[in-house]
């Protein structure tokens, strides 16, 4: 992997971005701004699932309204994140907190996938319940926890503990 990362770091555009006075801070800002909106939208859905918000609204109504916005912010969050990695791959690839962030991100994605493909497929029965079925509540709680851990470990990457 290291030769690939060295090659990536040496490219003209990654070097230019790494040394740029405005491009890099703008990229960082865009990354954080997209995450903030994305996380906010995810949290609203999760709070419904765990029964702390919008309990009178059917889950499907909330899901239908939020999903497109969640995707519209998740895609640029990820794209800017990949760009930030490309700018300085050798700095990140063995940073424990960066790897932890990737692991939490994967788990959060897996949780969302299981919810959408399994639990939510059979939502007709519990969609309007103020307190949804245990699997739904569990998915909401796991999502809140995993996305929080993703954001916190991401925020701690520059501290570079355990190097």
């Amino acid at each position, binding site marked *: 992997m290291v030769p690939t990362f060295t090659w990536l770091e040496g490219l003209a555009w990654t070097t230019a*971005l*790494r*040394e*740029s*006075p*405005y491009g*890099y*801070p703008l990229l*960082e800002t865009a990354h954080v701004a997209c995450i903030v909106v994305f996380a906010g939208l995810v949290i609203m859905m999760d709070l419904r699932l765990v029964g702390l918000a919008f309990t009178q609204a059917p889950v499907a109504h909330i899901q239908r309204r939020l999903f497109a916005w969640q995707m519209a912010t998740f895609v640029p969050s990820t794209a800017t994140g990949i760009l930030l990695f490309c*700018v*300085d791959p050798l700095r990140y690839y063995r940073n424990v907190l960066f790897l932890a962030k990737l692991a939490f991100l994967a788990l959060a994605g897996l949780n969302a996938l299981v919810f959408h493909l399994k639990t939510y497929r059979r939502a007709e029965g519990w969609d309007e319940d103020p307190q949804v079925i245990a699997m739904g509540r569990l998915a909401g709680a796991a999502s809140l926890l995993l996305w929080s851990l993703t954001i916190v470990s991401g*925020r701690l990457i*520059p*501290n570079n503990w355990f190097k």
Partner: protein
Amino acid sequence: MRTHIFLMLLVAGALCSVQPAQAHHAFAAEYDVTKPLTLNGIITKVDWENPHSWIYMDVKDPKGAVKHWTIETAAPSQMSRYGLKKADFVEGMTATVKGYQGKKDPVLANGRTLILKDGRSFYIGSVGGPNDGAMPH
């Protein structure tokens, strides 16, 4: 309602307990504010990059042995704000850096002021450093 107020107080308390000194630019975590230093030497390399730049300098210690110092500085945008440019650095040039020594690494320093041979002086300190007057008003 009472639980809500309790929860809000809990969150507010948790937020207040976050120590700003341990934030991203963790000056206090890596550098010793009680060990200010002045390095006179030859700049061997400069990494003019985000989020922080680095100056590499060969400095003779009191016994005459050359030590290879690594000096952390601010981001390009911050240093540009005080007039410093990437082109101001030429490998092999002599310069003076004032800053603070690393806590664990004895040849690591946090740069605060850079003085070039022509006498020009620049603030190169990163956010979160001590309020030591190095930063121009």
